[in-house]
């Protein structure tokens, strides 16, 4: 039995890179799902996402719910897809992001992110890109750092079936 997660593209970095960008994404699906096991070249870094090469922070907003093993809270930000579930120089973080109705042209684009790092925390994030354009490219990056070799990111299309 198979269900509707269609693999679109995947990469594992063989050397460090500033970002990973998926381009020419077909509009054939309902949602996009991005699975990342990120790794930084130095220190703890938060992960971010941009759509269609829009690098204006003011066009993104998100609400974050987090727990770090002793305390918890909620805050807001721009294009973050983690808060305490950030990445560092190992492969111990996992982030799963679902972007709803990514190819619609009559609504802002929203996403749900679940980011995890057992040594630092767990997050659930609801985000919005205030643009009605269909998403045809996604840039995954670290807010203040560089992606290390070994970072793996996969993109899937889903038809909610």
């Amino acid at each position, binding site marked *: *039995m*198979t*269900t*509707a*997660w*269609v*693999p*679109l*593209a*995947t*990469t594992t970095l063989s050397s460090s890179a500033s970002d*990973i*960008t*998926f*381009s*020419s*994404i*077909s509009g054939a699906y309902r949602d996009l799902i991005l*699975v990342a*096991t990120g790794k930084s070249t130095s220190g703890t870094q938060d992960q971010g996402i941009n759509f269609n090469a829009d690098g204006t922070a003011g066009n993104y907003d998100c609400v974050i*719910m*987090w*727990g*770090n*093993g*002793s*305390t*918890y809270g909620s805050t807001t930000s721009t294009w973050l897809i983690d808060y*305490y*579930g950030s990445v560092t120089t*190992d*492969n*111990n*973080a*996992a982030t*799963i992001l679902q972007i709803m109705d990514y190819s619609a042209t009559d609504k802002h684009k929203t996403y749900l992110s*679940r*980011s*995890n*790092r*057992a*040594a*630092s*925390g*767990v*997050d*659930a994030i609801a985000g919005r890109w205030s643009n009605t354009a269909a998403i045809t490219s996604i840039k995954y990056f670290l807010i203040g750092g560089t992606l290390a070799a*070994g970072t*793996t*990111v*996969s*993109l*899937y*299309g889903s038809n909610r079936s």
Partner: protein
Amino acid sequence: MQKTLIEHIEVGSGGASSIEFTSISSEFTDLYLVCSVRNDSGNLTFNINPNGSTTNKTRINLQGSGSSVSSASGTDITPLQSSSSYTSNTFASTFVYIPNYASSNNKSISIDTVTENNGTTSYQRLQAAVWSDTTAISSLECSTASNFAQFSSFTLYGVSSGSDGTTTVS
């Protein structure tokens, strides 16, 4: 269509203290486990043991009860299950995602898990876990104190990454 059913296990009459998926092929990229679980006693969590291991596991929870929030850490991997005191016929629901399960890295694990108790105190838990072992996962055990109740179910999928020939990555 690359999300493939590996195996579905349903607990039979009399219950079971554990279930196990064995001989998991390394042909997939990620594993995705869906659980519907009730305990026949008062236990509210069960354990996930990759390759049967009960060691080298850590996790952080963010949990709500319907009236309060908490965050805690531990050295186990613990989705929720409905206890026997919960409303009859209610089972806890859990999604477990394990990226790169066959890699030679430690295995990070994402868990979303909730109980249902007909409007009284019940729990929702997000859990970040890691199994600090570089061995490929080839079996996955779910175990509990006392027994999983009859009709508890566990369904394991393999997720395969790849290319559609259109999307480019750089």
